[in-house]
């Protein structure tokens, strides 16, 4: 457990509404990541951050934005949710002098 908390854990929302998912860490790690998990695709990187206000796009960033105004929080926003964004979203961190990622428990998002 790397002190990662995702909220909410489950959410159902309507198409076209904005949605924000939160990832909170307690250990001040520099690197944070948002992935989505879909059957047959494994985990795909949406956005990542390498410091406060330093973020970059991953392989499936369209329709998503992120913000990191504090070291401990990394927010993922769906500006206008679509059914194709129904997925399980995982936040991860990487310790500065390590190689592997540590994952949160995931957020199951359903867009109806």
């Amino acid at each position: 457990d790397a002190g990662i908390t995702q909220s909410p854990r489950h959410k159902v929302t309507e198409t076209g509404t904005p949605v924000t998912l939160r990832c909170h860490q307690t250990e001040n790690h520099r690197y944070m990541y948002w992935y989505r998990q879909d059957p047959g695709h494994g985990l795909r990187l949406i956005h990542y951050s390498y410091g406060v206000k330093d973020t970059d796009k991953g392989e499936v960033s369209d329709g998503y934005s992120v913000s990191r105004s504090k070291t401990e929080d990394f927010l993922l926003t769906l500006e206008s949710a679509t059914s194709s964004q129904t997925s399980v979203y995982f936040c991860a961190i990487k310790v500065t002098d390590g190689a592997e990622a540590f994952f949160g428990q995931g957020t199951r998002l359903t867009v109806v």
Partner: protein
Amino acid sequence: AQSVTQLDSQVPVFEEAPVELRCNYSSSVSVYLFWYVQYPNQGLQLLLKYLSGSTLVKGINGFEAEFNKSQTSFHLRKPSVHISDTAEYFCAVKGTGNTGGFKTIFGAGTRLFVKA
């Protein structure tokens, strides 16, 4: 850029039998390699990792993997599986140092079913 291919989407096996989950990767830079396990309704947890040194890496729960640079493979093995090993397994790759970037790239996953 890196990519990962897990050659089997599902692997059924009987309890106490050996199992191998196959993983191939491609990369233009040197890499770190990982296997993660995901139990139902949980996040991913690290099973083992290859950073450098010995190409045979041992992990938790009796799993091991062998890094083969010439074949760009990192196959996961266990000599005798248990019902509790039923889970989804992900192979992942990350470039080393700053030239490899900060991103970990995952394969599509292999679902291991252990039958009694």
